[in-house]
């Protein structure tokens, strides 16, 4: 088959969505499908730019390329699913969250003016039309599926995707908690730093970069965490696999996250995940005292959770192994078979 995988691109920003799209292309190619990544830069501000930039996808003609038909398109997230194709499939990572659950929060984008309120609704209307056209509609997590159904009435099939390919292994359980995230406010790394300030034995390694880095580094310094909190920045795949392999546990607690590959990566490294009760998607696989710990989104609670793990190595191992059994169920073979069926 000739397949176009459609994903937006935010120039100079790379995160889970980009890794997912690249991996999907590679996996499809590996199964003999002629596959291409189609991407268009996306800027969602100011004002109506969110719509005009989304509209660019609508103008693309992907029914054929160079005189040969494209059999299928797979769109991944807003606004790539606005693309037109008679055999459009959407494997939804997320909608434009500022128009939904992030509206009227500090992470929101739309103000209270009549024009801003209407703009938000127009984004939702576009979603209803564009997602409603999909021949098959998948969501990466129950959280994403529920949000979609609430907003549009559409009922996607649930299909989590495997994490990126790394040399996953467990080389033991070290003395640090690992965070792997883009550094922005929604990922709530500050919660981990505040917990470290309360737990003198807690060391943290923070992988990733982003607009919140400066503030987080200043916070770590302010709390006297120099030497206990290490900002590793963006690391290569070998180093990432090594950090997963040697950490005690992985912290992952964004606000109402869609899905997130980090828990799967932690599980494949036999590491428990520490998350919070309001984390959304991760709670579908992180169960308290089964595959990790789930605590209230408070520094003291988080500190207590990590202290518990430090004092209970058998539990840590058991949680990690239970997680691994879950993560191993999600394979590209199964996903692609469903996606193309």
């Amino acid at each position: 088959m000739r397949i176009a995988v459609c994903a937006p691109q935010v120039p100079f920003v790379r995160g889970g969505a980009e890794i997912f799209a690249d991996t999907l292309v590679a996996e499809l190619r590996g199964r003999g499908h002629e596959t291409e990544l189609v991407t268009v830069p996306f800027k969602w501000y100011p004002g109506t730019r969110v719509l005009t930039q989304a509209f660019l996808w609508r103008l693309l003609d992907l029914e054929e390329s160079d005189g040969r038909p494209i059999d299928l398109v797979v769109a991944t997230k807003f606004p790539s699913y606005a693309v037109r194709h008679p055999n459009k499939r959407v494997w939804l990572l997320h909608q434009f969250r500022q128009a939904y659950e992030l509206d009227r929060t500090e992470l929101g984008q739309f103000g209270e003016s009549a024009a801003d309120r209407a703009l938000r609704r127009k984004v939702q209307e576009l979603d209803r039309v564009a997602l409603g056209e999909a021949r098959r509609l998948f969501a990466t997590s129950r959280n994403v599926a529920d949000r979609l159904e609430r907003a549009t009435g559409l009922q996607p099939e649930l299909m989590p995707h495997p994490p990126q390919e790394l040399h996953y292994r467990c080389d033991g359980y070290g003395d640090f908690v690992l965070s792997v995230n883009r550094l922005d406010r929604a990922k709530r790394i500050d919660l981990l730093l505040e917990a470290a300030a309360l737990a003198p034995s807690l060391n943290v390694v923070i992988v990733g970069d982003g607009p919140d880095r400066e503030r987080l580094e200043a916070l770590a310094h302010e709390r006297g965490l120099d030497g206990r909190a290490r900002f590793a920045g963006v690391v290569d795949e070998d180093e990432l696999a090594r950090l997963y392999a040697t950490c005690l546990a992985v912290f992952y607690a964004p606000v109402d996250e869609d899905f997130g590959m980090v828990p799967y990566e932690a599980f494949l490294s036999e590491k428990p995940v520490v998350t919070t009760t309001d984390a959304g998607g991760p709670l579908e696989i992180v169960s308290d005292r089964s595959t990790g710990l789930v605590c209230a989104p408070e520094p003291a609670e988080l500190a207590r959770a990590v202290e518990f793990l430090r004092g209970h190595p058998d539990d840590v191992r058991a949680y990690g192994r239970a997680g691994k059994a879950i993560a191993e169920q999600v394979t590209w073979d199964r996903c692609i078979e469903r996606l193309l069926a």
Partner: protein
Amino acid sequence: MKVAYFSPMPPERSGIADYSELLLPALRRRVDIAVVRRGRKRSPRGSGVCLYHVGNNPEAHGWIVEALRRRPGVVVLHDFVLHHLVAGLTIGRGDGHGYLDAMEREGGVVGRLIGHGVLDKRIPPLWESRPEEYHLAGEVLSLATGLIVHSRYVEARARAAGFEGPVWRVPHPAWPVPELTRVEVEGAPLFGAFGNLNASKRLPQLLEAFARVRRAHPGARLLLVGATSPGFDLDRRLQRLGLDGEGLVREGYVEEDRLWSLIAACDAVVSLRAPTMGETSGVAVRALSLGKPLVVSDVGWFSELPGSVALKVPPDGAEADTLAAALSLLALDEDARRAMGEAALAHARREHDVERVAELYASALEQAAGGEAVREAVLAEVAEAAAAAGIDASSEEAGELAHRLAEVRIAE
């Protein structure tokens, strides 16, 4: 944003009053609503948008149309055919010329002449005999800045009538199921039909079909609930079909609680009508909420129900045959009834959930308030980019841009 809300309200006995009573608490959680007192024709100070509920009953909606004439706004079109409303607002108030103008607006000179025939009592009142031929929705459509409709059918008819503004399709909300009193009504199975008994509810066809079903399924019963419309000779029809005995269970008009209990007692609910005025059926929505399979006419809103919840009967020459086949299928196949019932329940929860309906209302109202500014900003940016790329406003490419913008409802 403050919304001036024009609607009949309880204790007024009107389906739309019940509708508003159900919708308002959920809508108020999303939008600042000022319900306008009955008869008041001005919108409250500071209202950004006016919302007018328009149905076909002149008693309930006459004052609302008058308010709409003062200030255009978003219209909730509960029926598409407004002939009865317009007749009440014109002839009913001694304004024969107004009726003739409405008829001419829609039907040209021929329409005006037919209107004269009605005024001169040479032909029966059209709103009773064949209202679907002249919908008379023209004035309301011309005053509406946007429409909220319950079905694709009404949307299509409004478009066919020339309405060019935004249309939002919002399902009818489902009432929460009340505590039910168990009602014992004999029948294996028991079919129920609710509402006024008359020809437009396809009662002649239903009785004929049911009489046939009874021959193969003597345990089946038909529960008819509602008043008999004047001129409809139910008894004679029953007698002719041999249904005056134990096959039929009759109840007149019933209060809400008993209505729910009776629907709950049925194995399937029959909700037929033709012609359709573009209305939804409150009874059908209640039946879905109770997980009852439906048998409906294949018209208007009813056609748009999923096949998994409703058997659809076209109102054609074979109507009684098709209806008998549908009833027989349900009488024979308990598994089919159960599967349809489960699908009905799921459909009611998904499609007619009042919170979802309120969210769609809020979306429509927010777009009505600020949508034009968004539209203009988007069009300006797209037009500027197109012009910079050398695309002329009258070119085919510009036409495609407009088409694509409308397709995703960015700018219609």
